[in-house]
């Protein structure tokens, strides 16, 4: 009985940990052909807010993402634009209603599809779990944020 309780508690603890946005847990990836190697947090914020629509190579900025209800998307929105997902959706809607050009987004079924889509689409970027980077096989470029790579001290995502 005690073992069962311990197991349940462990499961709950694991679930709670999983739901948290761990510092350093996110990575921004772009196609390997992108001339961009790094961004500041302010620039990343502008990208996600739809304030910037083109990269230096004139390709159109497109955010490739899995379900906006997913944990990675929520953590990304919290870390980058300090909003909740509903607030972010309302922000995009407001921008569109004002007649501004909204951020181009593509939704895909899974994180691996997101990465593969980014790899093959000029101007695309995606925010993925840093822990998944080893499995990407170098198909995409990982951007430095504020001059730091995932895993380095001071990395802001």
């Amino acid at each position, binding site marked *: 009985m005690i073992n069962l309780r311990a197991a349940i508690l462990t499961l709950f603890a694991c679930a709670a940990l999983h739901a948290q946005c761990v510092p350093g847990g996110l990575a921004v990836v772009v196609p390997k052909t992108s001339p961009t190697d790094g961004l500041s947090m302010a*620039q990343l914020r502008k990208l996600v807010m739809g304030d910037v629509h083109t990269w230096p190579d004139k390709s159109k900025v497109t955010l490739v993402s899995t379900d906006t209800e997913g944990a990675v998307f929520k953590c990304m929105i919290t870390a980058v634009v300090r909003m909740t997902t509903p607030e972010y959706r309302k922000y995009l809607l407001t921008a569109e209603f004002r007649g501004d050009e*909204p951020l181009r987004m593509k939704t895909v079924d899974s994180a691996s599809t997101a990465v593969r889509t980014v790899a093959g689409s000029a101007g695309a970027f995606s925010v993925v779990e840093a822990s998944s980077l080893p499995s990407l096989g*170098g198909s995409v470029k990982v951007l430095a944020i504020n001059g730091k790579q995932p895993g*380095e001290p001071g990395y802001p995502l």
Partner: protein
Amino acid sequence: MAPNRFHLVVKALTVCVAASLICNSAAAQQPAAPTQQISQSTVDELVRLLAAHEARIRELEQRLSAQSSGAVSITPATLAVPVAAAAPVMADMPASSVNAATPAPAPIAALVPTDQAHETIDDPHDHMMSLGGGAPALKIRGFFDFNYGVGSIANPLIFPEANNGCGTCGNPATPSHNAFQAGEFDLFLSSKISDQLSFVSEIVLGPSTTNEFGIDIERYQLTYRPNKYFSASAGRFHTSIGYYNTAYHHGTWFGTAEGRPIMYLFEDSGGTLPVHMVGLSFAGEVPHTEYLGLHWIAEIGNGLSSNPNAAESVQNFYSDRNYKATNLAFYIKPQFLEGLQIGGSWYHDGINPTQAQNPLPVPEIRQNIESAYIVYLTSKWEFLNEGVMLSNHVTGTGEAFRSPMAYTQVARKFGIYKPYFRYQYVHDNVNDPINLLKGIYYGPSVGLRLDFSEYAAFKLQYNHLFQSGQLAGNGLDGNLSFTF
């Protein structure tokens, strides 16, 4: 079901399907031939074939798995990409810091076709219509609000069409009764025509004190935006006077409070400012001002009708003068404080009431409208402050009628609750020959917005309004607004 039995059933079904396909194929090739029985040996052959394919798939899966698991271990070395020291690297920013050594193109092999992705519809409430064949898709979104008002100035302040709310606004006077009220049924239609061309429009159906629904195309705007430094729009749009007028349009769900500030009331609700313009609008960011976020806007178009009592004061088709209204606006959105926006505008028009369709014996007027604002908006805080000076100068006499107006609004979000407070002041010169709204209006409004759903909100607002020549009034209004 046991795994073995499950596999057997799957195999049996597969065989049936394969056999059926073969039969169909055969039938297609020999339509006149009689149906042939499949022999046991054929079925056995098919099963063997399937088993071989399954084995081959398993082998390939194992190879793929081995490749991906043993590929890269994440170490600083593997992640060592030349970093541009977080310098600006985006196109819309100085490109000087872009790494000149562009990496070699990545191998494109094994990429999943991008048709596994689809263009986002940002949320489940978007409705798209497309004829296909590459034609632009039409996106439709709706807004509606429903109200219940109690008190003398509850509704006139929000829908100030009754005489006791806005003086001589031209609508039939009605006694103020408690009432359920339909708000605006707003259809927002937009379409991305090409990478640089887009169209937005708002079709609004709303009732008035006559209880009849009227229809208005409140906005129609074709925009060409080649880059962030320049965009050009043609159509009917909200004039860039101040902040509120272009930040909030007809969907009341967007606004924190109920109703617009009195100074920004729509023309057909007794408002004095030209909140709509029919003409051209140009806008963009000023290059090399990223830190400050300096933006510019220039507009030219038909000003309002020279007769303020015209049935439709926005000149959609016929203009009663050659003089065109112009408006110039600037604002900054500095990087150092996210959410801050400071701006101002200058509007100028020449109004000639003697040339109106229903002429008025009023000399020509030069109208100037100056505005300034400072707003701070975050996901939690909302702080809006605006001031406008409307000046009508009568030519010949040099007489000037000035009408200052301002409001402040503060709100703070606590989860789904957002209490807010607004205080407004409008002093429309009583001797002004063309202003509809006359007199002084000032007072507080306090309310609570409850976002009980992501796309629906309930607002409860209390208004206290002092009006020159009348007793101060109180009102309470409940508002249900949503998007669909």
